[in-house]
């Protein structure tokens, strides 16, 4: 089919190639253009023109596709960004929530590794530098079973890690639950489909993999990280356990990504 056979069809084909912006905007512009051109053609035919001539006249009055598209595309970037803002934020929140759940799982992984490899391997004890007396008093009060300040520091670090990471995990689960309820199956789910389906698992896999490998390499190097006002230390086991959890999360995202890119396209 060419412009001489069907001017309206050729015009619509040319226009769709020029339009930019969200799909809904392009669809609406095309629907209104087609309705207009068909109505103008019918009017031309009623006035005595043959259909092809009426179509040509309708198309000529409508204006060149590039000029019409230029007017329609004005503000397309703003429209696109506005359309992507909410799905983008929701995706970021969901990734963050999964991250929090992963942090919670690392708390459990550290506890499991502690049972196997010992508390000192996971949480580490500072060497060469004496603990501040005030911190020592605090730890020993919190851990009455500990025989030394270093042992109290270790046990306190282990308890705190499990507690804080567990709290992060619970917060992540609550966030995921709230998102599932808010997004539901209808409009909210369609909203997220505005973004490419591969985007979220790709970002998730990349971030978790980078974080996981980084932590494993760091843990394998045996570096002790001393931090916080109380001067506790983080042992190699903590990095290795956390890194393993992050790599597993990356693999889970990679699996989701693989399924999404190989699955048939959903009905939109």
């Amino acid at each position: 089919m060419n412009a001489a056979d069907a001017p309206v069809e050729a015009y619509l084909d040319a226009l769709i190639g020029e339009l930019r912006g969200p799909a809904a905007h392009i669809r609406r512009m095309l629907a209104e253009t087609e309705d207009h051109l068909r109505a103008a053609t019918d009017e031309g035919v009623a006035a005595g023109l043959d259909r092809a001539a009426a179509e040509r006249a309708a198309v000529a009055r409508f204006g060149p596709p590039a000029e019409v598209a230029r007017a329609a595309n004005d503000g397309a970037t703003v429209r696109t960004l506005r359309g992507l803002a909410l799905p983008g934020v929701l995706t970021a929140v969901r990734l963050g929530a999964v991250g929090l759940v992963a942090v919670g799982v690392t708390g459990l992984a550290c506890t499991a590794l502690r049972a196997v490899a010992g508390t000192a391997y996971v949480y580490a004890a500072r060497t060469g530098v004496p603990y501040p007396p005030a911190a020592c008093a605090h730890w020993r009060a919190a851990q009455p079973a500990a025989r030394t300040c270093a042992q109290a520091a270790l046990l306190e670090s282990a308890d705190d890690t499990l507690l804080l990471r567990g709290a992060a995990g619970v917060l992540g689960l609550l966030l995921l639950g709230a998102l599932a309820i808010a997004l539901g199956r209808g409009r909210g789910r369609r909203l997220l489909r505005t973004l490419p389906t591969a985007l979220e698992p790709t970002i998730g896999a990349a971030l978790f993999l980078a974080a996981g490998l980084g932590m494993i390499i760091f843990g394998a190097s045996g570096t002790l990280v001393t931090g916080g006002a109380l001067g506790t230390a983080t042992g190699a086991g903590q990095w290795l356990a956390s890194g393993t959890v992050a790599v597993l999360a990356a693999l889970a995202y990679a699996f989701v990504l693989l399924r999404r890119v190989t699955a048939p396209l959903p009905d939109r």
Partner: protein
Amino acid sequence: MKRDRIKGHLELLLLSVLQAGPAHGYEVIAALRRRSDGELDVPEGTVYPALHKLEEGGLLSSEWDAGSTRRRRVYRLTARGESALEAERTAWRRFRAGVDAVIAGAS
């Protein structure tokens, strides 16, 4: 009238046409041509983006016409559009009076 001259006033013209009642794009363009005795000649396709822009600004609302065999969208003036139209009309009359005064003085 030259297209460039219409461009800056297209929104006022569209709001004025729609003050008479809801209409779809084709009717709006036909009314524009009829009410100006063919003087206002714009590429018809550029009217739709202008209608969309007015709707995004809250001056118009629109919905698909369920009663039509064609897929056409009907536009109507909102209360905000009525207020904007009155303000634009006043501004236009002042502008026209100013231009008239200058032109009359020069002749």
